[in-house]
């Protein structure tokens, strides 16, 4: 408690986390371009500053000095507030995350619930943006985006519910403490898979980036935005959500600041662990973004409702069995791991190349 004033304390901590979020966004824009560039065997930004380090700052300056356009027939207040409505929930997720065992902005005993509920609110920002732009294609893109975001919430919520059942609490600190011996990813790989798919969909990254990139024809809900307003809607929200969900995923699945030896070694080790785990989740997200093509909107929805949702129910069921019959933890690995393999098989079967291309010998005509 800083100073003895609750408000001052809250304010200072919020500022710290806001600063962290902005710093992370700046770093992530640079890291993404370098990382994706290396995957594509090219150098990435190199000219702005040594090895292109100042690229994010150059981008920010460029966006700030751009002209702030607004279509004349756009709904003025909705148009201007849409980026904020999209960004604030992404930032609000960071408020409930405990970065070490005793430091977070506010550690709520409903932490998990709060994170899931608040991160769903950014859908409102996208719909506001699409509606207020007074553009047929923006509305179309916004509707698709809303459909995607809302649909992917559901399996994620169920997977996290399953996890909370086993951990016995919704409080994030307690969940992390319950992973002292073994992180939850080991027992519940299926839940982790569902969470990763949900994270990719929440941040609108490939393969689920129908709203984000050129949706083959036009630009999605952000066509009419320019300059810093666009940057808040797009870059800030996306990277803050990615950061928030990565820290969240690191906390609940990868053992957070507790595994391997968090509680014993003190806060510096815990911070390091959190940092390393969140970074690895971010890198995996960027890696998957750079590798996959885009799914079509109907395939995306089919993937969610027909595959992820039943798997999420299955995970809840398995966890329930574990609790009711008091089975030891490793049975969960068998069942959840088995379900994950089964999911992989379903995906493989649905997309298998059934009739291979025949390269036949000369002289045999068909």
């Amino acid at each position: 408690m800083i100073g003895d004033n609750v408000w001052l304390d809250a304010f200072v901590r919020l500022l710290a986390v806001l600063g962290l979020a902005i710093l992370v966004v700046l770093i992530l824009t640079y890291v993404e371009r370098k990382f994706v560039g290396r995957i594509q065997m090219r150098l990435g930004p190199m000219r702005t500053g040594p090895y292109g380090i100042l690229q994010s700052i150059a981008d920010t300056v460029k966006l700030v000095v751009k002209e702030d356009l607004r279509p004349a027939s756009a709904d003025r207040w909705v148009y201007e507030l849409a980026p904020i409505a999209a960004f604030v929930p992404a930032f609000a997720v960071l408020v409930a995350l405990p970065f070490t065992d005793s430091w977070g902005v506010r550690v709520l005993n409903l932490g998990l619930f709060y994170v899931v509920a608040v991160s769903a609110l950014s859908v409102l920002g996208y719909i506001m943006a699409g509606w207020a732009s007074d553009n047929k294609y923006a509305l179309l893109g916004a509707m698709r985006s809303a459909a995607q975001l809302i649909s992917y919430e559901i399996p994620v919520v169920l997977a996290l519910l399953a996890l909370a059942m086993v951990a016995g609490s919704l409080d994030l600190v307690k969940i992390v403490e319950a992973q002292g011996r073994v992180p939850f990813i080991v027992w519940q790989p299926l839940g982790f898979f569902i969470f990763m798919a949900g994270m990719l969909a929440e941040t609108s990254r490939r393969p689920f980036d129908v709203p984000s990139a050129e949706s083959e024809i036009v630009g999605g809900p952000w066509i009419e935005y320019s300059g810093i307003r666009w940057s808040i809607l797009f870059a800030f929200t996306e990277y803050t959500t990615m950061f928030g969900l990565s820290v969240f995923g690191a906390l609940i699945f990868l053992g957070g600041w507790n595994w391997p030896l968090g509680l014993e070694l003190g806060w510096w080790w815990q911070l390091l662990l959190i940092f390393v785990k969140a970074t690895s989740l971010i890198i995996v997200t960027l890696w998957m973004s750079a590798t996959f093509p885009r799914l079509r909107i109907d395939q995306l929805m089919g993937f969610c409702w027909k595959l992820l949702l039943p798997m999420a129910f299955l995970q809840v069921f398995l966890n329930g069995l574990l609790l009711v019959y008091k089975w030891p933890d490793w049975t969960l690995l068998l069942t959840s791991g088995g379900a994950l393999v089964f999911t992989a098989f379903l995906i493989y079967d649905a997309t298998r190349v059934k009739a291979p291309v025949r390269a036949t010998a000369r002289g045999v005509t068909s």
Partner: protein
Amino acid sequence: MIGVLKAMATTMRTMLRKPVTIQYPTVHREIPERNKGFPLLLWDFEVDEPYCTGCHACERACPVECMTVIMKDNPNFAEEKSKRRKIVDEFWIDYGRCMRCGICVEVCNFEAIAMNNSWTAQEQSRFDRSELVLDLDQLLAQSKAGKIHPWVAP
């Protein structure tokens, strides 16, 4: 699922390779000897005049008609310094029309014109299109300075 993991393994493998791009303005790629840049005229150092006699062979052979040649009587011939009766008086090539096919080099009887195989040929950007029409002095400049090693087809 397997395919997805295979694809991710491929991208990880390529990430660990050395990047193939180079930073252009600071580093230039090496151009092969036969590169067909824009054509330029060669200077005969022994007699101190261009090789070109203004015979119009390249002008006629050019598919896009980008050259204009004017011939004159060679003053050096009258003074017995050179064997060329006629010498080029004016020569214009419009680099904006040239299609770099190399036919002019093939038909030249005197090996007076050559394709520029150095980086200067690639960096011919101008702000005004009329600056792309080069006259005789500009065409001879690089050869006079000795900065050209043209490749001639055997």
